[in-house]
């Protein structure tokens, strides 16, 4: 199996789906000639031409609304928001139309589109280039919200997203883009949207995370195992909405303890939903309060203070230890 980083894996998913299905169209700002500001769509313009890899004018709302029209008319648009921090211009189209069209028409009209956007901190960027606002989409009924954590999950989930009959918002952890390589099979691979996966098996405590935060979570788990013999079970959510609560609620029934990790602000974040599901479904098994290790309830600061904002190995390990000691 070839080893690739997340940028290459996403590029491969796009290329293979475009080869397979001529209704798949890419559009966005600088996705063509420039190959995307992160080079995710590099080479695709040359291969598929400007009708299928569309450099659009600078207008996020238009990119989303235009995609909705394309999807209604039978195409499979994969549009890109250059940074998730610019997707709020598009929020109105996604919330008011993409998410509701199926419900509004009682199933007659679907919007099979994907909106890709790099999200998250840790790359020393300017304002609007580092935030993590996945819950805006997750809170919108009718949308699916997916966040892969590794090259292989990114590739498999993106293929599933493109084939999904409903609109999918696909956040790509830009801190992971070129951080590491992983084996990704050349042959077709999908991963079901709405399913989480076990990233690490363990018996002492369940740690639930997703996206860019999976790496420091796994690092914390490995440090705790090596130094203190603590065995963490790590669940990688992959889909934020619809949330798969089966794996983590079952895991907590086994371990009795849980910590949730995300970089988004804490209040009303995905962690709050995870805790609510645990209370609903595993309450009697809980031996300690569930801790949320998150960003703080403020806009992620510029890069000099960014690492104090983002959850790191120290913060995660401390919360795990304290939850075990409770």
């Amino acid at each position, binding site marked *: 199996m070839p080893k690739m980083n997340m940028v290459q894996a996403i590029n491969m998913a796009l290329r293979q789906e475009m080869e397979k299905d001529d209704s798949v169209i890419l559009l966005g*700002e*600088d996705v*063509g*000639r*420039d*190959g995307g*500001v992160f080079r995710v769509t590099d080479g695709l313009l040359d291969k598929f031409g400007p009708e299928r890899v569309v*450099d659009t*004018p*600078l*207008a*996020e*709302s*238009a990119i989303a609304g235009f995609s909705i029209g394309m999807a209604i008319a039978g195409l499979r648009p994969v549009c890109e928001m250059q940074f998730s*921090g*610019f997707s*709020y*211009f598009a929020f109105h189209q996604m919330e008011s139309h993409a998410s509701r069209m199926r419900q509004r028409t009682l199933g007659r009209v679907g919007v099979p589109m994907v909106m890709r956007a790099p999200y998250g901190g840790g790359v*020393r*960027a*300017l*304002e*609007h*280039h580092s935030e993590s606002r996945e819950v805006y989409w997750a809170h919108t009924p009718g949308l699916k919200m997916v966040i892969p954590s590794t090259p292989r999950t990114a590739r498999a989930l993106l293929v599933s997203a493109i084939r999904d009959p409903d609109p999918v918002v696909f956040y790509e952890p830009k801190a992971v883009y070129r951080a590491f390589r992983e084996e990704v099979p050349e042959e077709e691979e999908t991963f079901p949207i709405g399913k989480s996966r076990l990233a690490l098996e363990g018996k002492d405590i369940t740690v639930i995370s997703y996206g860019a935060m999976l790496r420091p979570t796994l690092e914390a788990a490995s440090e705790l195992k090596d130094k203190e013999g603590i065995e963490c079970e790590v669940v990688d959510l992959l889909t934020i909405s619809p949330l798969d609560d089966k794996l983590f609620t079952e895991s907590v029934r086994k371990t009795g303890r849980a910590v949730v990790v995300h970089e988004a602000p*804490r*209040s009303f974040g995905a962690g709050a939903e995870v805790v609510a599901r645990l209370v609903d479904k595993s309450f009697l098994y809980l031996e300690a309060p569930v801790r949320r290790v998150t960003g*703080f*309830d*403020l*806009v992620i*600061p*510029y*890069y*000099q*203070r*960014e690492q*104090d*904002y983002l959850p790191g190995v*120290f*913060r995660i390990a*401390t919360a795990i230890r304290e939850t075990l000691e409770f």
Partner: protein
Amino acid sequence: MPKTEIDLPYRVEYLSILDPDGQVDASLDPSLPDELLLKLYRGMVLGRKFDERMLILQRQGKIGTFAPVKGQEAQVAVTAAMEENDWLVPSFRETPAEIWRGRPMESVLLLYSGYNEGGRAPEGIRTLPVSVPVGSQTLHGAGIGYAMKYRGEKSVAVTFFGDGATSEGDFHEAMNFAAVFQVPTVFVCQNNHWAISIPRSRQTHSKTIAQKALAYDMPGLQVDGNDVLAVYQASRDAISRARSGGGPAFLELITYRMSLHTTADDPKKYRSEEEVQEWIKRDPITRFEKYLRDKDLLSDEKIQSIAAEVQAEISAAEGRWSAFVEKGVDPLDMFEWPYAQMPPDLVEQREELRRELEAKRGKVEKDTLVRD
């Protein structure tokens, strides 16, 4: 009924006073006072040299990503035509204009080296912070115009944006509001021909950007944006018209982004070196230098002394910036910023971070002891 032509109040005109070779159209020369001419020159040189310095600092890893401004320095003529109580509503490629209006250079360096302190508005200066989401600030310019009109202040709002921004809905909504309410807002489009990799020709099908103003019954003038005299003249006209109750106006400054979109960009992917070379011949500074030499306002010695003065000013700002950086900042400060009064949640979270930082320091000290 016959088909007849509808008479519109405006047509699109193009203004150029000082050509790329430094030849002035004497009939249009605004004959600005020597002092102002030299101040404009100095402002442009400062813009260029500070930009060059920031690029070096960025390549050395001392500052992060920023948007170079090289080639667009004639923008200072817009701010030169403003009065002290006017408002500047910039996007993110207006560093020389912001400096003209009193933003200290160390504030710019702080912003791009990752300190939120770089966003702190200097006291008493009506300049909004840099706005990154393209075109969004134009609405603030329109709203400020409304406030000035409502309060009976004779102040004008001047909002900057690029050619890419004219594709955003926010921009059109701002133009419409400004026109409907006849507010004193001047829209300044810096058409630098490239929105990252998208050329002007692919941004809009319109022949000019200025003509978009006509849809709102607002005067729209196309100006040679590398001609500092034309930019000054057009800005002065638009600003004084707005100030005297004539309503909003639109200026399309034709210029060129000679450098990168941002320091994370590689323009070789999408544009030719020949095109860049063509625009270097139309450099706003060299042609103005020629004009000033012809007027005996500049000589080799004078050019050198201005350059030296400007360098000294940049070094001094860099010194103040370095002193700030060396002093360091308290991460806990970040909790102070979001609300006028810190909500209890944030008080708690600040305490959490304080404990975490202490524990981390403790861990480092413990590790050091163990090693000893």
